[in-house]
């Protein structure tokens, strides 16, 4: 991965509390796995930055190396890699996702 790709990813996750690297946009996800994470975040009313990897092949491949994670979507909260679709869905179902946003002081709506 080029330095400029890794720097660009780093600055995106530094500048935004919640970042979702996904296929498509949050308005129009292009993959069911990405869509599932968008739905979980939207349900909790979390504001997040979406990065459409389909618009940038370097980011698409770079984020996999950056996170050492082979699939997309990938969720970052305050610079920390939280997981992909399966993990986020599981955390959503158990209430851990909402708890995480509380701990990280991210504005969201609690729906227990």
């Amino acid at each position, binding site marked *: 991965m080029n330095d400029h790709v890794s720097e660009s990813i780093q600055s995106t996750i530094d500048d935004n509390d919640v970042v979702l690297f996904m296929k498509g946009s949050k308005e129009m996800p292009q993959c069911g796995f990405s869509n599932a994470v968008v739905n979980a975040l939207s349900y909790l009313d979390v504001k997040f930055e979406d990065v459409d990897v389909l618009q940038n092949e370097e980011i698409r491949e770079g984020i996999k190396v950056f996170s050492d994670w082979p699939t997309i979507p990938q969720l970052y909260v305050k610079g920390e890699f939280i*997981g*992909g679709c399966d993990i986020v869905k599981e955390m959503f179902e158990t209430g851990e996702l909402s708890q995480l946003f509380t701990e990280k002081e991210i504005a969201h709506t609690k729906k227990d």
Partner: protein
Amino acid sequence: MPMEQKEIESLIKVSIPDAEVTITDLAGDNNHFSAHITSSLFDGKTRIQQHKMVYDALEGRMGGILHALSLKTTVKKD
């Protein structure tokens, strides 16, 4: 060509010998699977680490020919 369920299961068991693997063909198309893996080796690890162990077992197939494998990992208790 899609991977066979048995191949996924045996690759996982090579790396995680005590794994109990349940694979479900989600769409009946031999292409969209979910795998539930239970192992004592997951003990003390985060979900991310557990999933990475499975991805490592699949030797780079994840995200490539295995686009649609949904994972769930559980720690096996004695």
